[in-house]
């Protein structure tokens, strides 16, 4: 039976699948294409027409040289992943695990393991709507002899995203097409969901086309999003070496004692405090090897190699300088300090002493963040548009924490640095910030008990933080990242993340066909549209990871995966937030060097 083609993809003129590659801006630009073909035989020329919203287009336009790596059918999975990868993700090859090689003769990067590679040089371009036709001379070719018995990968095998049970799907499709069952199914489906008239030009434009104004609008945010500078590290392994670690501080320090026990049973634990009774009590409770009164004593003890500092924020500098002077390594609680001058002094002291200074930022080691970053780069949510960070809970700080000059502020300083780090890992570096706040509920503290900030970046994303010690979050994720193809929910302490793809899973897709609508509404559940992704790590928070990383850095005598400059930057961004709060206007965040 003949069916009218609805889009250009129905014409099947997209054929053999290959990867276009060229030297781009600080990366190898890659683009999966099934719309290249030879133009003339002698001299041999080809035509490519890369999508103008991808980094490959400016790369080819600038360097005039590119490669077409024709992929064998056996590379289906990698090409599916490359097609699905985020459009503006730099270094897409690395994200999907493709090997990029360089042809020395022509200075053109290409994909390793291709059936055939064509090295091309642009001769001419022809404008043709939302694509530009590049007419290119073939400079040379390279074959992989061991793959010559394979046929090339076809577009129809990689379109539609990752698929499971491919063999079964093929079998079912063959039976349905041969028996005519497919026609009946299509007719039935169209009865339930009437199709728009088969206007191939309009439908194609609606699904994937763009006019010049639209292209200019899309590309005004850049073909690459280079705003993300931080990457979550791999989960550090538990320590096997014998190390003496002293936890300084008997308040939040007790939490660190427990984390240290979880992070490494091999570490010898010591405790340090000012109050003799309190310190001795904590040492007994956590079964510490010994305890010290005063940080000087702990830092001087030869049994101690590293110290975990959990003191009031304004004491961080003094403690860090003392530890560095003693030649010991320090893991200091966040924020690094209450001002940038103290932060700089701490970093300089560690550098002078040749010791490790690491800031305890659990967000950097939170497994959910690492998993979410992977999903973002893989393209599961498309282009990330909005970040929502919601840190809330009833807390009534007292003592030093109630004094803004010792705390460095209020909830924005205390919780803000965490969510700024999460923002930087998931989205990138903010460029501007606007801040405001609701009424003060806790009048016993001099700092703010709630605040909200809106960060922006010119590459096209915004971030909204709501921080409160005077309201509850309820059963909501603490971090949500929303993109044009899906939304991620990160739950505090959970060992999973939730993905809500724009293209819904099978069950809600099937239920959307149920009529009458009242029955469909009764049957449909929000969770049906959810894909729950389990994390490999049991600990949902990043506390154990951060301590493991500190122990590994000390044991291996190396810099930690997150240097103290990361924490200094978090502080700088939070201080910009305070400036915005004071001014009531959008404030520029100091740019990174």
């Amino acid at each position, binding site marked *: 039976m*003949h069916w009218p083609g609805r889009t250009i993809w129905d014409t099947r*003129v997209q054929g053999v699948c290959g990867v276009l590659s060229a030297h781009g801006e600080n990366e190898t630009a890659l683009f999966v294409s099934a719309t290249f073909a030879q133009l003339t035989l*002698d001299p041999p020329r080809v*035509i490519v027409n890369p999508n103008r919203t991808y980094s490959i287009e400016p790369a080819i336009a600038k360097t005039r040289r590119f490669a077409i790596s024709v992929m064998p059918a056996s590379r289906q999975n990698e090409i599916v992943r490359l097609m699905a990868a985020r459009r503006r993700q730099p270094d897409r090859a690395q994200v999907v695990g493709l090997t990029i090689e360089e042809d020395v003769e022509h200075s053109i990067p290409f994909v390793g393991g291709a059936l055939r590679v064509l090295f091309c040089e642009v001769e001419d371009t022809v404008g*043709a709507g939302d694509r530009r*036709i590049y007419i290119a001379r073939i400079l040379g070719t390279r074959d992989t002899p061991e793959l010559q018995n394979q046929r090339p990968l076809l577009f129809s095998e990689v379109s539609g995203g990752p698929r499971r049970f491919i063999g079964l799907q093929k079998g079912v499709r*063959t039976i349905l*097409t041969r028996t005519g069952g497919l026609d009946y199914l299509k007719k039935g489906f169209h009865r339930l969901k009437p199709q728009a008239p088969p206007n191939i030009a309009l439908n194609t434009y609606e699904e994937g086309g763009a006019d010049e104004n639209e292209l200019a609008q899309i590309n005004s945010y850049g073909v690459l999003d280079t705003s993300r500078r931080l990457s979550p590290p791999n989960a550090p392994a538990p320590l096997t070496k014998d190390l003496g670690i002293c936890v300084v501080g008997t308040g939040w320090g007790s939490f660190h004692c427990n984390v240290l026990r979880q992070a490494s049973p091999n570490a010898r634990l010591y405790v340090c405090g000012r109050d003799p009774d309190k310190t001795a009590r904590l040492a007994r409770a956590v079964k510490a090897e010994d305890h010290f009164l005063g940080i000087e004593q702990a830092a001087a003890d030869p049994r101690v190699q590293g110290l975990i500092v959990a003191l009031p924020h304004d004491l961080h500098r003094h403690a860090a300088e003392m530890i560095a002077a003693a030649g010991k390594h320090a893991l200091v609680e966040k924020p690094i300090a209450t001002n940038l001058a103290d932060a700089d002094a701490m970093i300089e002291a560690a550098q002078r002493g040749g010791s490790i200074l690491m800031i305890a930022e659990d967000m950097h080691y939170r497994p959910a963040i690492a998993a979410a970053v992977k999903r973002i780069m893989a393209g599961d949510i498309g282009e990330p548009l909005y970040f929502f960070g919601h840190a809330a809970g009833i807390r009534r700080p007292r003592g030093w924490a109630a004094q803004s000059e010792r705390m460095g502020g209020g909830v924005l300083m205390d919780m803000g640095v965490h969510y700024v780090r999460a923002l930087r890992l998931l989205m990138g570096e903010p460029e501007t910030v606007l801040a405001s706040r609701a009424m003060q509920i806790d009048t016993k503290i001099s700092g703010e008990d709630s605040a909200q900030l809106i960060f922006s970046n010119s590459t096209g994303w915004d971030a909204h933080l709501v921080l409160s010690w005077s309201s509850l979050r309820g059963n909501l994720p603490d971090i949500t990242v929303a993109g044009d193809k899906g939304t991620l929910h990160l739950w505090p302490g959970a060992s999973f993340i939730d993905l809500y793809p724009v293209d819904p899973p099978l069950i809600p897709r099937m239920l959307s066909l149920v009529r009458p609508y009242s029955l469909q509404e009764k049957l449909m559940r929000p969770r049906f549209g959810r894909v729950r992704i389990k994390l490999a790590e049991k600990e949902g928070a990043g506390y154990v990871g951060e301590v493991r990383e500190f122990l590994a850095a000390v044991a291996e005598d190396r810099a930690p995966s997150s240097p103290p400059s990361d924490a200094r930057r978090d502080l700088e961004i939070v201080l910009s937030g305070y400036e915005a709060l004071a001014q009531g206007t959008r404030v520029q965040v100091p740019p990174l060097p």
Partner: protein
Amino acid sequence: MLAIVCQLSLCSKNPPTQYLPTEYRGHHSAQKLLPEGLLADLANSADFVIPEFAEHLVRSRSVTEATRGDRLTSPYITASQLPSIVGLVLVQTAHRANAMTVSFFSEVAHHPTSLWVSIAKASFTHSLLEENGGRFSIAVLTQKQKETALQCGTQSGRDRDKCAALDLYPGPEGYLFLNGALASTACSVSQSVSIDDHTLFVANILSAEMDSRQSHLRQLLLSDLM
């Protein structure tokens, strides 16, 4: 069976030897292989089986291979640098219709929805396209349509009505569509660019039809024709 392999080029003293079968590559001039008169006779012979793929080469006096009664190997197959899918360009004028096998075609843009096809200037199809104002259709062939591709790629439409042997049906607005193809697409040329001995036709896609009974099959590839 008389098997003659030749390459004649009056245009160039060093004809492209890539069009020769493997055993003759490396010869600077294929004229040395066979007497010139015989080559000319072959090239001009009315019953000489000429691949339309290579028709432009004949017209520029550059013949690839001739085997009387045998199917010819086309340089579009042997010398193609890219593995490509294969289709038929179907052109119709008031007096004639023709089908030509092509592999030099692809998608151009999504707005306007368009594709391109490269056609040798010397081909019959090219002249028909000039005559009918650039209206044609492209039928993308399935892996099971190798014979159709060879039939329409190894004979000239000037000498024989290739469409008579095809299962064609009228598509929208009278465009010729092919039964059994994966899809047939009606196109109208919007711009043409001359590139040496070929013309690049960029054409707007007007409409298309898919054959659901073939949708489980893959496209025919050039390598299937070797």
